């Protein structure tokens, strides 16, 4: 039976990480039908979550202009959105992970994203 299409929001301001994430999502999800939306900062992410059909997964960077990942996560949760939010950041210190989880993220993975990491994330949240 074919897996249903999944809709992922990637919140990332740097092009190299967007390119990596796009390739990793495509390789891990294994289908061209899945949708990967992009937001270049936390404020844009909050707008997209509010305006677009529900996402199945949100991949959230931390350090971004306008609004960072912690604040964006807090605001998305304050809207009552329960979509899994995975923090993706170069900062892997315990304090940074705790801050993200405290803001409402469900999981943390260090950058860069890979096919393997994405595969594990999709499996963790029942999206495979």
């Amino acid at each position, binding site marked *: 039976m074919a897996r249903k299409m999944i809709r992922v929001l990637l919140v990332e301001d*740097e*092009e*190299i*990480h967007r*390119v990596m994430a796009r*390739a990793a999502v495509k*390789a891990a999800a294994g289908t061209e039908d899945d949708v990967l939306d992009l937001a270049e900062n936390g404020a844009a992410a909050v707008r997209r979550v509010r305006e677009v059909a529900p996402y199945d997964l949100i991949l959230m960077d931390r350090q971004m202009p306008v609004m960072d990942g912690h604040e964006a996560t807090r605001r998305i949760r304050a809207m009552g959105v329960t979509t899994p939010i995975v923090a993706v950041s*170069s900062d892997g210190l315990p304090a940074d992970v705790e801050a993200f989880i405290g803001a409402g993220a469900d999981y943390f993975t260090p*950058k*860069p994203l890979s096919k393997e990491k994405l595969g594990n994330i999709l499996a963790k949240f029942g999206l495979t």
Partner: protein
Amino acid sequence: MVFMQGFLDEQFNQLEELQDESSPNFVEEVVDLFFKDSSRLLTNIEQAIDKYPQDFYRLDSLVHQFKGSGSSIGALRVKNECSVFKAHCNDRSLEGCRRSFQKIKREHATLKQKLESYFQLLRQVGPREYAVCSRK
């Protein structure tokens, strides 16, 4: 990839796994993106180091970006030296930052040279041989 040992980590292999028929130059494209980003960041870091008074928060932020970008291609030595630089920022040691920055520039230049040679070699041997080389 024997000659790259020590310069690149496992992430480079992960990058190669993302390359396929629909994106046959993916690895080189990502590497090009890194060097485009990193040239800009190196200039910004140099300007920030020379600025007075020093803004260690901004310096840390710039090197954090640089480190993150380097980690995408598995630039191990560059990444490690960025960690040293960040430690100097934390200690507010300008002299430490200056020394570390010189090392980052050297590692960056060496890596660029090695990767340019690597991709040149791949272009010479052709796509089939690349599929063999990349698994060594």
